[in-house]
C-alpha cells in the first residue's frame, strides 16, 4: 500500500509516461492490423508468438491509457476509429484471452464516457443513454468465467474482482450528469 500511495500521488508523471508509451506504440504500428505491415521487412516475418505478444502489449497499453484518462477525466490521445489491431486470441503459451478482451471492451466504453459524458460541450442525453446501454451490454455478455458467482462465499479471482471494480466505477459516474 505505501508504494501504491506514493504512486497515487504522482498521477501526472504516470500520465506523461503512458502518453510516451502510446506514442512509441503508434510509431511502431502496434495499433494497426498485422496485414498493414506486409511491406515492412521488420514486421512481415513475425512469429505467431511475437505477433500475439505485440497484440497483447498494444491492448494493454490502450487499456492503461483509457483507464487513466477516464479516472483523471482527461481526453484520450488516440481515437478508436484509428485503431484496427486484431483483438487478443487464445494461443498456447499465453494466458486465456477472455479477460483481456473483456477489459479492452470496458476500456473502449470508458473512452466513450470521457468523450460524451465529461466533454467540454453540452452533454446529450442520447449519448449518455448509449454509454449506459453499452455498459449493460458489456456486463450481460461477460463470459461465465468472468462473472461474479451467485455464491457469496465463493472466491472469484483477483482478475474478476478488478474487472468488476472498474465496471462499478464506470456505472455510477453517470449520476453526475
Amino acid at each position: 500500500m505505501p508504494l501504491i500511495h506514493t504512486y497515487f500521488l504522482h498521477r501526472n508523471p504516470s500520465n506523461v509516461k503512458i502518453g510516451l508509451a502510446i506514442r512509441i506504440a503508434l510509431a511502431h504500428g502496434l495499433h494497426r492490423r498485422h496485414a498493414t505491415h506486409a511491406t515492412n521487412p521488420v514486421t512481415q516475418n513475425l512469429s505467431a508468438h511475437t505477433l500475439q505478444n505485440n497484440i497483447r502489449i498494444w491492448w494493454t497499453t490502450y487499456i492503461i491509457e483509457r483507464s487513466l484518462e477516464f479516472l483523471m477525466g482527461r481526453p484520450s490521445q488516440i481515437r478508436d476509429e484509428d485503431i484496427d489491431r486484431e483483438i487478443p486470441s487464445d494461443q498456447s503459451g499465453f494466458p486465456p484471452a477472455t479477460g483481456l478482451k473483456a477489459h479492452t471492451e470496458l476500456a473502449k466504453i470508458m473512452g466513450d464516457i470521457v468523450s460524451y459524458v465529461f466533454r467540454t460541450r453540452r452533454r446529450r442525453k442520447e449519448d449518455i443513454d448509449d454509454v449506459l446501454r453499452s455498459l449493460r451490454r458489456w456486463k450481460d455478455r461477460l463470459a461465465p468465467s468472468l462473472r461474479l458467482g451467485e455464491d457469496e462465499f465463493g472466491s472469484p479471482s483477483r482478475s474478476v474482482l478488478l474487472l468488476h471494480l472498474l465496471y462499478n466505477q464506470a456505472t455510477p459516474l453517470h449520476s453526475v450528469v
Partner: protein
Amino acid sequence: MYPEADFSHYLNYYHTWDSQPLVFVPRDPYGLPARAIATSLIASLYATYPPEIFYLVHPTVLSQYLDACFQDPGQNHQFHALVNAALALGAQASGIGEGVNETSPGMDYFARVKLLLTTVLEDNNVVSVQILNILVYNPILAVLILGVIPHGSESTRCLLYIRISCTVIPLT
C-alpha cells in the same frame, strides 16, 4: 470573468497537481538483488497481479531477461529497466524491498528504472512500451482501489463506495 477569484479552484478541479515529490536514494542502475530474491519477487508479481486482464510482460521473456542481466550485468540497459520495473511491482506485492528500513518496498528498483529511462525512451521500441506500461500500472490500481475520482459530488462518491463495498465485501 471568472466566478472564482482563486485559480487554485480550477487547478484542483482539473487535477494538475501532484502532492509530493518522489525522493529516491541514488542507486547503481545496473545493480541487482540476490538471484533468489529476484526470482521470489517475480513469482510474487505474477501471483498478485492478474495476467489475465493485463498483459505486462510474458513470464518466459521476463525470465530470459533476468538471466541475461545476471549473466552480463550492464550489457543491456533495456533488460535491466524491464527487470527492475517488474521487481518494483513484485516488491510491492510481497512487501519485500532492498532497503533495511524501507517503508515503500520496491522504490529502490523503481529508482533504477528512472535512471535508465532516458535511454529506454531513445531505444523507442516495443520493450520501451512494456517498461512504461509497468511504471504506470500502479497508479491505475491505486485509483481503482482507493476509489478516488476527480468528478462528481460527495454524494456520487459515497454511492460509488457503497457499490464497490457491496461488490467486494460479500466475496472476500
